């Protein structure tokens, strides 16, 4: 049971349980998103396509969902720490005699630039697009890789 404080004088004198419930719902949603660590606009760049970036010891991995994009239409450029993904999503027309019930998929061009935390070895960058999922593997520059130094007994 939640007790909501009645605040008279706000928006007239009548207590409106519905607007109060909505306010509570919004608040809960916001708290939930903060706790769950989902982006909710805070970290996402707002540019197509959405990217996931991961790293392991040797490389960075950049992934993007690009359904319906021909791998031929994707162009990847690297420059220092930057990665540029350029491309176009084409949706060919389906003939003149069709009528649409739903049209949610969109065509258009895209261009996204992202920076990686450390320099990469641009000669060894590899990209694969499989089932509309682009994976770019960017090996870290040799100087960046953590080196393990053995201590020899004297």
């Amino acid at each position, binding site marked *: 049971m939640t007790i909501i404080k009645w605040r008279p004088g706000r928006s007239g004198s009548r207590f409106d349980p519905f607007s109060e419930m909505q306010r509570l719902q919004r608040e809960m949603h916001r708290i939930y998103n903060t706790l769950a660590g989902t982006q909710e606009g805070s970290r996402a760049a707002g540019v197509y*396509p959405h990217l996931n970036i991961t790293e392991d010891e040797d490389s960075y991995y950049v*992934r993007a969902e690009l*359904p319906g994009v021909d791998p031929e239409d994707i162009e990847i450029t690297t420059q220092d720490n930057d990665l540029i993904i350029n491309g176009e*999503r084409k949706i060919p027309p389906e003939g003149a005699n*069709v009528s649409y019930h739903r049209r949610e998929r969109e065509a258009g061009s895209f261009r996204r630039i992202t920076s990686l935390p450390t320099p990469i070895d641009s000669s060894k960058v590899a990209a694969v*697009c499989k089932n509309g999922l682009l994976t770019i593997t960017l090996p870290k520059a040799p100087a960046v890789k953590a080196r393990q130094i053995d201590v020899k007994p004297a």
Partner: protein
Amino acid sequence: MSDKELQVRDKRELESEGERTRPGPVFVPAVDIFESEAEITLLADMPGVASENVSIDLHENQLTVSGEIEPLTSEKEEYLLQEFETGTFHRQFTLSDRIDQNAITATVKDGVLRLVLPKAEKAKPRKIEVKAG
């Protein structure tokens, strides 16, 4: 290059879909559905879903399309930035026309499912001529 620039949109997450046996989020794929005289075609964006992991079920007039994905990352990888989540795709449709179930074809290319549902003979529109009396 076309003039239009693609706008980024968050994937639509399915709020509730009964109890699921597999954990993880469920997303609603964006679709195009269009109809010609002979058939209904459905295109669904399901990035990361291989053709063998798509399942299509037509029961009565209820069409269910779902797709499972493989894990994205290896165990060693750590996230630096996560702008999208991955999970199962699932969407249901109710079809108004009668479909010839034996003639349904489905293909997957670059993460887009193309489902062609030919109409049964009965459902094709017929022109009725009005004779002068």
